[in-house]
C-alpha cells in the first residue's frame, strides 16, 4: 500500500488497527468508528496519534465532537460506485471545518481522484502497482469547476463575475 498526500507519494506513518488488536503505545493508528466510540479515552492516552475510519454508511455527524483530537478521518469507498463518502468528505470540510487529513481508502481509482480532491480528500491509499505520477496528472485533467466544493477552487460563476469567494472555502 502506498499513500499519496497532497499530490506527493510518502511512506504511510499510520497503521490500521482492527478491533481485536491491542493498541501499541506510541504508534499512530486508524481505528473503526465502533472501537473509537468504545475506547475513546484509552486510545487517546495510548496512541501517539488517532484516526477514525468511517464506513460509507457511517455519518460524519458521529465524530463531529471529536474532530479536534482526530488527526486523520479515513472515508471508505467499498466499491467505486458507492459515492456516499464524497458527501461525507465535504461535510467534514465544509460543515465541521475539519483541517486534519481526510483519507480515501478502498476502491480508489485514478479516474475518481479528481472528484475526491474536489470534495476535500487530501490523502489516498493506493495499491502498490499503480503509477502514482500518472495519478498526480489525473487531478489536473479538468481544471475548470462549474460548482463550489471543498477544494477552494473558485467556481466559474465567481470567476466570470469576479465576485470574491467566501473565505472559509479555502480551508
Amino acid at each position, binding site marked *: 500500500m502506498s499513500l499519496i498526500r497532497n499530490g506527493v507519494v510518502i511512506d504511510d506513518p499510520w497503521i490500521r488497527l482492527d478491533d481485536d488488536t491491542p493498541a501499541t503505545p506510541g504508534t499512530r493508528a486508524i481505528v473503526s468508528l465502533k472501537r473509537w466510540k468504545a475506547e475513546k479515552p484509552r486510545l487517546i492516552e495510548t496512541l501517539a496519534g488517532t484516526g477514525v475510519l468511517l464506513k460509507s454508511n457511517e455519518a460524519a455527524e458521529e465524530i463531529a465532537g471529536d474532530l479536534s483530537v482526530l488527526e486523520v478521518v479515513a472515508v471508505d469507498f467499498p466499491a467505486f460506485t458507492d459515492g456516499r463518502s464524497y458527501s461525507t468528505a465535504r461535510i467534514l470540510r465544509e460543515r465541521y471545518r475539519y483541517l486534519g487529513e481526510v483519507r480515501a481508502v478502498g476502491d480508489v481509482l485514478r*479516474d475518481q481522484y479528481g472528484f475526491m480532491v474536489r*470534495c476535500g480528500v487530501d490523502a489516498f491509499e493506493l495499491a502498490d502497482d499503480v503509477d502514482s505520477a500518472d495519478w498526480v496528472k489525473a487531478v489536473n485533467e*479538468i481544471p*475548470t469547476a*462549474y460548482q463550489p466544493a471543498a477544494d477552494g477552487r473558485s467556481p466559474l460563476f*465567481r470567476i*466570470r463575475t469576479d465576485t470574491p469567494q467566501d473565505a472559509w472555502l479555502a480551508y
Partner: protein
Amino acid sequence: MYQYDQYDHAFMANRVDQYRGQVSRRLAGDLSEDQFKPLRLMNGLYLQLHAYMLRVAIPYGTLSSGQMRKLAEISRTYDRGYGHFTTRQNIQFNWIKLEQSPDILAELASVEMHAIQTSGNTIRNTTSDPFAGAVAGEIDDPRVWCEIIRQWSTLHPEFSFLPRKFKIAVTGSEDDRAAIKVHDIGLALRRNEAGEIGFEVLVGGGLGRTPMIGKTIREFVSQRDLLSYLEAILRTYNLIGRRDNKYKARIKIMVHELGIDEVRRQVDAEWEHLRDGALVLPEEEIARIRAFFAAPAFETIETPVRSYEVARFEDQDFARWTKTNVAAHRQPGYGIAVISLKPTGGVPGDATAEQMEKVAELAERYSLGEIRVTHTQNLVLPHVRLSDMHSLWQGLSDAGLGTANIGLISDIIACPGLDYCALANTRSIPVAQRIQQRVDNIDRQHDLRELSVKISGCINACGHHHIGNIGILGVDRRGEEYYQITIGGRADENARLGDVIGPAVSYDEVPAAVERLLDAYVAERKDDETFIGTYERVGLKPFKEAVYVTD
C-alpha cells in the same frame, strides 16, 4: 440560445482530451472493460446488442441549425446516416466504433455540444418545455434555469456516483409539456404572493418498474435558493438512498419508503447548512445567462394573416397539418411548428442525415435558426411567421417530414426495443408500425382526436408506457413476446399512471386489441370528448369488455 465563453470552451477541450486518454488506455489494455465502463458511460457511450451507442446531450432540447448540421455530419461520417431522437430530448447514434468516439466528442465540442452525463448514476441532461420562450403566458423562461442547472451539475464532484441516475425537468408554463411529475425532481416556475418568481419543487416521480407521481416537497423556493436546495436534496439522496438493490435505488423509492414529510425534514436540515453558502448565484451571473434567452426581435404583424388563411382554405392537406402541428405563439402573426418524426411505418424519432440538414435549412430560413426536440420524439421550429408556414410545410413535405399527426394516435412514442437494446424483452418499433398501419387513414386519426400511445419493450419503461393514454409494455412469456396494455395514463399537469386492462396479449393480437379500445371510445364518447376524457368519465369497464370480448 446559450453560447459558450472561453471557460466553457476550455473545459470541453480538456474533457475531450481526458476521454481520449481513457479510450487509448482501454485500447492498450491498461483498463479492463469493467474499469472502462463507468468512464465511457460518463461520456454517453453504451455497449448495445450490435455496436456501441453514443447518446449526445441536447441541453433542454434546444439546438441551432449549425448544431443540427453537425449531428447530420456525424451520422454520415461515423454512423449509418441517421440518428434517433429520444424521449429525453437527446439524440442517439447506434453504430459507433469505440476508437472513433473521441473524435466524435471533439466534433461535438466544436459546435458547443457534448455527451457528458447522458448516462451513469449522475444528474442527467435537464429537460424542459419544447415551446419555451415561444408560448404565451410563461411565468419565466425555463431555459435560463435549465442552463444554470446544467452548469451546476456538470461533473459535480459529489454527485457522480449516486445510488442511481437522476433526472430533473423544468416547466415555465401552467400547461406541463415537460412531464415534470414523472421526474426525480420536477421544477415548476411559480409566482408567490409577493409577486416573486421561484419554484415549486416536486420530488420522487418516475416511471420504470415502480412508476410514481412526484410529490411536492416545497411549495416555493426562491431563485436565490434554487441550487442550494437542489444540492440539499441530492446530498440527502446520495447519503440515504438505497444502494442494496438497483431496482429500488431511485429517489422515488426513498420518498415512498420514508414518506414525503420525513424526506422534507431531512432535506430541510441539510439545507440549513447550505442555503447561505457558496451556492448563492451572483445576480450578474443569472443576468448573463438570461441575456442569451432574450426574446428575438419579432416583427409586428397584423392579424389575421391573410395569406395563411387563404392557404389553409385552398389547401386541405396544409389545413389539416396546421390543425395538429401548429401551436399558438406568444407573438401575433407567428406560430410554433411541430415536425413529426412519426410517419406511418417509420421508426419513431429517427431522422436521416438529409432530413436533419433539411430541418437545419428550414429553421434558418423560417425560424431564426432555432430547433427544439420534444420528449415525444418530434422536432419543433419555435418561431415561424404564419405567412411562411405554407412554404415551410411544403419544404417539410418534400423531405418526408410533413406528417400531420402531432398528438394523434399515430404520434407514438416507442423505445428502441429488441431491435437495438440489450435490456429489452420484446420489440417495440414494429408494434408501433403495425398500429400506425391499422389506423393509417388520416381522417380517422383526426376523428379519434388527441390520443397518446406509448410503447416500452421492457419494464424499464423507456417508452413511457405508464403515462400513455394507451400504454403497451412488452413482456417475455416463455420466450414469446407478449404485451400488457394499460389505459388512462397521462403526462401533463394532471399526470396519472395508466390502469392495466387485463391479461397480456400476443404480438399478433396487439393491433386488434388497440382497435377494440378505439371502438369502445367512439361508442362511449360524448360531444368533443377525447379518449382520456371518456376514460376518466366512464372508467375501465367498457374498454376491458371490448378487448376481452368472447365471440
